[in-house]
């Protein structure tokens, strides 16, 4: 069912989907998008790979292999931005630079702590989607293999029964 065309499209779309995700995330404060949508977009790019090439193929992409573990890196990063001001004696979640202070720009990218938080959200969501795709895919492989084995065994039994019936 996976033709060469789907494979071609899937492979071609992986890098763009991740690039779009990153762009959406970093521009999130000034344009449509945020870490959450970015995570899902990148995750859908990976889902396409899983559909076209099979789940086992996912492990060969380094970015994808470490994504589920990245969930917890992202969580730590996000919680770090939440608690870092608290350690410094400020209320939780005090972003810097503060109100009215100067913000360094790089194109539309702003160097502010909410972006760091959003990167954490992105990692969590991306890891979540990839992790679930992997888990479901692997479970599917297992289930389908077991079913095939079960069907084969039944077919063999039936054949043996027929043979025995024919021998009489």
């Amino acid at each position, binding site marked *: 069912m996976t033709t060469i065309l789907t494979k071609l499209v899937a492979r071609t779309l992986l890098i763009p989907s991740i690039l779009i995700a990153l762009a959406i995330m970093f521009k999130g404060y000034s344009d449509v998008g945020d870490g959450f949508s970015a995570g899902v977009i990148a995750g859908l790019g990976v889902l396409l790979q899983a559909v076209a090439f099979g789940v086992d193929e996912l492990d060969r992409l380094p970015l994808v292999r470490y994504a589920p573990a990245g969930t917890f890196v992202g969580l730590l990063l996000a919680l770090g931005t939440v608690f870092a001001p608290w350690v410094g004696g400020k209320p939780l979640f005090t972003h810097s630079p503060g109100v009215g202070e100067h913000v360094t720009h790089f194109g539309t990218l702003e160097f502010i702590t909410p972006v760091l938080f959003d990167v954490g959200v992105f990692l969590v969501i991306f890891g979540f989607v990839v992790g679930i795709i992997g*888990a479901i895919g692997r479970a599917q492989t297992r289930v389908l293999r077991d079913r095939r084995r079960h069907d084969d065994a039944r077919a063999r039994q039936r054949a043996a029964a027929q043979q025995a019936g024919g021998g009489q």
Partner: protein
Amino acid sequence: MTWNSALMLLTVSLAAPLVVVAAGAVRVRLAAPAAILMTSLAFLTVLASFGTDNEALSVAWISDWGVEFTIRLDGLARLYALLATGIGLAVVIYATAYLPLHLRHEHRPEGEIIRFFGYLLLFMGAMVGLVLAQDAILLFVFWDLTAIASFFLIGYDRDKDESRAAALMALLVTGISAIGVLIGALLAWHELGTFDVPTILASESTSTTMGFAAALIAFGALAKSAQAPLHFWLPKAMAAPTPVSAYLHSAAMVAAGVFLIGRMYPLMARFEWMTTAFVVVGLTSMLVGGVLALTRDVLKHILAYSTISQYGYVVFLFGLGGSYGVKAATFYVIAHALSKSALFLTAGAVTEATGQKNLSGVGGLARRMPVLAIGSGMAAAGLVALPLTIGFFKDEFYFAAAWDKGPAFGVAAVVGAALTFTYISRFWLGMFGPLGRNAAVPNAPSPLPGRLVWPIVVLGATVIAGGFWVRPFADLAAAGASVSELHHIELHGAYHLDTRPENLMALATWIAGLGLLATQRVWWPAAMAFSRLGRAIGPERIYGLTLGALNELSDRIHVFEVRDLRSRIASILLPAGVLVGVAVYVTPNSSEFEVGSIRWDDAPTVLMLGLASFAALAIALPRDHLNLALILSCVGYSLAVLYAFQGAPNVALVAVLIETLFTLLFIGMLILMPRSILRYETARRTEGFRLRRDALMAIISGVMAFSVVWGVLSKPAPTATAISEHIALTPDAHGKNIVTVILADFRGLDTAGEITVIAITLLGIISLLRIGRLR
């Protein structure tokens, strides 16, 4: 925060379990010495506190509600802390020898000793915290902590059904009654606006509210002290290892109950019905415990019923009040704890040496184990109030208080004391003396390690020392009673060789006790009949029936609820729908549901909503799961387009992405479902009654959701102001995209919580799919 003895004591006691567990983690053998070290340290801290300051130490805790972390080492706290740590030390030393033997009998690993000492010292820490606490909420926290620690201690032999049932029973009885203490504290706060215990005690309010508060606190205290009719958990709790029984049921857990009465006495003594209740409950417990102790054969059960009876004395004395009652009660606690802990430890030592748990299995052990016999003999002599023991004075004060109140109370007191004399004599003479039924034990008792004997001797010697030099004990009790009575109290004990009522009553007690011992055949059938009656219709049976019925009810609800997905959803949506319907019906809501006008530029909205509704209705039609998933996604996509039309590109983007992802995952999951189930579900037709029932449920929950959403949308005022505020603040947060700024800044804590949940869910799903059986 300045360090004073109260804070030092609390720190040492609460650090003790942590130190023990840490030492045990390094090496199992270190746990026991660490326990001895920490308990000694706590004991020495109490001893060193004599003559030092006893200022209250207060730290703001939940200042909005007036809850403060206030501790103070006053006379009452010092007395109970001394018992908890001093007897605790004897018990811990004993346990260092007992527990390894116990674990070997039970074929359990050596390392479990860490758990034992951890919980035992946690209990000690909770007890110390309880007696120090001067804030009603703090007091309740430690009160509950003792119940939790006792649950793990009583259920220490977790492989045995009996232990687990006993632990549960103790937790339910003392834990549920503890709620009474909390409610009492809240009622007092409602009345007086403070949780500060001295302020509550100093107020002289006798309002109904304060009456309820006093009654509820007393209820918690009496249940903890195993007073009738909630006494039944205590004998069951004897399933615990002996050191636990010795500690919890002489100096700590049951003592916590009478401690609370002592602490709150000025509140309770205000109400005459309260003191009358104490007299009734105390007398009942004294007599019921005494009679049942006569009928029991298991060594620890005799002592358990004895404890019920002895704490009955104390409650009785609190009820008597008067010039003697409170100080007699306070002194009684000291004398009883010393003797009773020694006797519990003796029961454990005898069982360890002979392998017998029953009185009928032992006898004549005095010659084989003379040191143990003398040590426990001194303790038993104290409990039956022979002269030259501290126990003599406890009974003198007790008789004086009863006689003070009236001759009838005096007679009741003598009867109770005579029962004590009889069952304790039966207990000690049955083990060590000629009373034992088989004076010759079949197997010679095995020699005991010293640590199983000399803690008993030390406790027994203290009992005797108190008989010669009663002054320090009397001063201790007087200091405690002064706290309970809110004014200074003196207590003097001395021997008087004259015919004052106390002496005559003591004499009458001994004679009656000896008479009872000699006439066992006469009363035995009656006592046994009483015991059988208690088993048939007593409170323990009621407890069992109630627990069984509750279990049954819970099972039925559970079975109904989880029978299938349909009933699970119905059991949530249907009651919710009915409740919302009632709420909508009874609240005045004519203005809440508005129908606005539809203009031409609403056309895209109407179109997309129409599509979404059409898809939602169409979900009811297909039978196979793939089509279901696709139509479901159609609803979501229609809504996404709607968001886009409404000028919310960010929300629309998220909606499209989520819908795509979920539909794909949904279809992926369908492959995992066993084909037979999918086929069965597809082929199944719902007809007749079931169809009508399901349709009714669907309509009810749909109407509920509809009316709630309509009501909310008709009155968008509060959300509108919040949104305009967010819009106004967005430039300050260096942003242009309001949605992202809300997610990452204004409501960022919500997002942080949500991504934490997502990460945890991922762990759950992965482990479920990896090990779960889906075929």
